[in-house]
């Protein structure tokens, strides 16, 4: 638990090298753990462990995991990794990170899961690439890294919160227009 507490601020800040360190520390043991119980290839096991690291990062950044974990970091990662491996054949990889509700104790039930919209990941990906780099960075920080407007002003040198807010809105409008063109 000390390990997680020490790494928490780095994960919260989006320091990806913290994930590399965790991986170097625990992945081999995870491979041995899985190989002794199931029949998966090593690359599949390593792949699942990488996914587990990303789940950890997402949960910290979106506030689903706080400064304290109820188990050790190793136990947490092994549980998530094993779950992902066993689900591998049932779920599309792109959405795997959104389907781990039982690892998100604080997550409320989403009343709008009956999504009928037809946007595909590839369309978003293609459109996102066409955005200007500052727009990409702004949306990445706001929606992925969970930055507040105050943090965005500080890290991306915007003149004020107002300008960051209107820039985010403009970038989203541009993205929506680009997606419409892709459809």
């Amino acid at each position: 638990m000390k390990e997680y507490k020490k790494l928490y601020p780095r994960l919260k800040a989006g320091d990806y090298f913290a994930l590399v360190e965790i991986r170097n520390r625990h992945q081999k043991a995870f491979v041995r753990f899985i190989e002794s119980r199931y029949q998966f290839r090593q690359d599949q096991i390593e792949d699942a462990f990488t996914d587990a690291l990303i789940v950890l990062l997402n949960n910290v950044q979106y506030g689903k995991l706080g400064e304290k974990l109820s188990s050790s970091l190793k136990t947490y990662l092994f549980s998530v990794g094993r779950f992902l491996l066993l689900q591998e054949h049932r779920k599309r990889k792109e959405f795997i990170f959104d389907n781990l509700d039982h690892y998100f104790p604080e997550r409320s039930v989403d009343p709008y899961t009956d999504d009928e919209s037809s946007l595909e990941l590839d369309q978003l990906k293609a459109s996102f690439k066409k955005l200007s780099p500052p727009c990409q960075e702004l949306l990445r920080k706001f929606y992925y890294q969970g930055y507040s407007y105050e943090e965005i002003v500080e890290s991306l040198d915007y003149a004020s919160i107002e300008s960051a807010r209107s820039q985010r809105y403009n970038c989203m409008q541009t993205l929506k227009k680009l997606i419409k063109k892709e459809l």
Partner: protein
Amino acid sequence: MKTDCPNNNPQLLEECIDRYLLNRMSPDEKADYEKTMSTDPALKQQVRIQQQLIRHLRANENASLKKWLQNTVQSSRSPIIIQKRAWKWVLPIAALLVMALMVTLLIPHFTQEKNAEQSFTQLAPVPQNYLSLDLRGIDSHSLFNMGMKFYEKGNYDEAMVCFNKMDDWEAVDANGIFYIGLTAMLVKDFQKAIQAFDSVRGQDFYFREYLPIYDGIMQMELGNYAKAEESLQQVSDGNGKFAPLAKELLSKLPPKD
């Protein structure tokens, strides 16, 4: 508690939807917003669209991060994850292992000539002819694409062979040159890496975030501790995502005379 979400202002409306979807509303505010949504199909639809956009944005970023993690960890050559003192031991040990492997490969070559080629093929981690590819006559753009394929598989030496054969870097955009620099850094060709990074400096927010930390690490590896300190201090003061790493590296710099 009533939410302050006017539906006559598109920007404020979207900000409210964001606050709802990003869990930034208080429980009361959230309950109130859900109640409004249940009686407003247009709002409900807008929330759905925004929710899907956010999911896809996150999935897209996760896919990029996964690729980066796989490349970084599989190479095990990153100067970032190997501390300087440890590196001094890694090289001699690696050299001994390579010699031991060569002896293991050569003994059956002399004793069982028929099986030698087969044994080598089984043991070699990458096809042995990659480094002697005849790349003459291939244009720079194709060389770059070939190099990126090696890069994506974590075969950085082979990627660098392709990049080094490019006549000019104008065949690729700034993002491409950034990857050439990154590959050069991973194979410890720091002069080439610095040359590539210098040519894209200031062109992209993305580079602005990564280049200072790379500068610091490379200057550390080159033993230019004053320059390393300057770059790392800049990252540390910036409070960006690499600030904790920069602080850690700063603490590892040798004391000044």
